[in-house]
């Protein structure tokens, strides 16, 4: 049986994981019955593989990066709220209002210096890591490498959970500085999206999805002595899936 135009679209969508489970199942049955489908699938997968492997990763040149940055040279973080006591007091007032309104405005309280809202600081750390050539200080998909690396540098290391089977492979870890305190951040991947998972001393209970900041979603939960903050441009529902998988996952023995 030859493939119709529609079959071709479905085959491509099936390979790309874009069919919903019911249609994927139905298509798998047809795939099994039609050698022509299987052959075309092999060719498409060969093309996908060769594009992934052979095409060089394009990067913006340092000169271009400088020119674009010059379009809008950002204010360095952490200086914004150091302007003086007046702005600190204003911030404190706005926080009091935010708490009264029942919204979330956790401040960085674990070190002197910055008084920026914690979610903003975490998004800034995540963005800085994305812009560096490496999002991690230690690159390893092996939790038995990542956890000891933290052990040697920080008083408290986070749980490191293997979530490869759930579609969130571990990329590595890095140390972020929040206020003046170094804290561990695990880096996971979900397809092309990077997830930064930062562990801070426990602040409160429960899992919360925060309003996104500049397109980055944030999910936060507390587990024992640590509060975990996941930041990513992954859609909120998928980031919540990640949080659930991490909480359910088996930690390093």
């Amino acid at each position, binding site marked *: 049986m030859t493939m119709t135009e529609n079959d071709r679209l479905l085959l491509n*969508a099936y390979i790309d994981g874009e069919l919903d489970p019911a249609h994927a199942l139905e298509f798998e049955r047809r795939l099994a019955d039609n050698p022509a489908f299987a052959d075309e699938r092999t*060719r498409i997968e*060969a093309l996908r593989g060769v594009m992934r492997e052979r095409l060089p990763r394009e990067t913006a040149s340092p000169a271009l990066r400088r020119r*674009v940055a010059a379009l809008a040279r950002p204010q360095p973080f952490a200086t914004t709220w150091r302007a003086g006591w007046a702005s600190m007091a204003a911030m404190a007032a706005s926080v009091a209002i935010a708490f009264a309104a029942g919204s979330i405005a956790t401040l960085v309280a674990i070190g002197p210096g910055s008084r920026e809202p914690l979610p903003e600081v975490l998004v800034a750390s995540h963005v800085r890591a994305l812009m560096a050539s490496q999002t991690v200080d230690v690159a390893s998909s092996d939790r038995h490498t990542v956890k000891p690396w933290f052990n040697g540098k920080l008083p408290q290391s986070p749980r490191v959970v293997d979530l490869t089977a759930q579609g969130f492979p571990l990329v590595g870890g890095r140390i972020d500085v929040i206020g003046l305190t170094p804290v561990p951040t695990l880096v996971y991947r979900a397809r092309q999206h990077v997830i930064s998972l930062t562990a801070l001393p426990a602040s409160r209970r429960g899992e919360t999805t925060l309003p*996104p*900041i*500049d397109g980055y979603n944030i999910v936060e939960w507390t587990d024992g002595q640590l509060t975990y903050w996941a930041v990513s441009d992954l859609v909120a529902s998928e980031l919540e899936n990640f949080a659930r998988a991490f909480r359910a996952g088996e930690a390093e023995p």
Partner: protein
Amino acid sequence: MDRGDSRTRFANVVMPHLDDAYSLARWVTGNRADAEDVVQEACLRAFRGIGGFSGGNGRAWVLTIVRNAAYDWLRKNRSPAVIQVHDLEAERVQVPDDATSAGNNPEAALIARADEAKLEAAIASLPAMFRDTLVLRDVQGLDYREIAAITCVPIGTVMSRLARARGRVIVMLGADT
């Protein structure tokens, strides 16, 4: 929004996607120098328009602007034939006769052996809108919904463009020359 705020937003929303922006611009324009001009122009538009970014997918937002800037560049610097692909939408892709290749799949082996130059040439020969759909999917790893948003077409059009783009590249790479 005051200027300081838009600078911070620009740094958060646009800067992390500069490599993706450049990559897309290079595939659309076909060369590095023009791609840099396109990215710079797109980033200027993004900075001016950052107040209109409503949150959500920052990468898709940036790539939409880059793609628009790249097509403006194409309209200015290339013959209209490069961009007019609506006629080609109806064109059918010639595919190998599946029945004869059942079992051992020689085209797949040829495709897997294609080197960078051959691959680049095959992709570059696609009409612009097929090329950017393929690049957004298989080089940049975006999903269909994101590609539909960036290229301003329904998901069905993304599917047919992608299937045709892959079909053409497969034919070019699978031909034993």
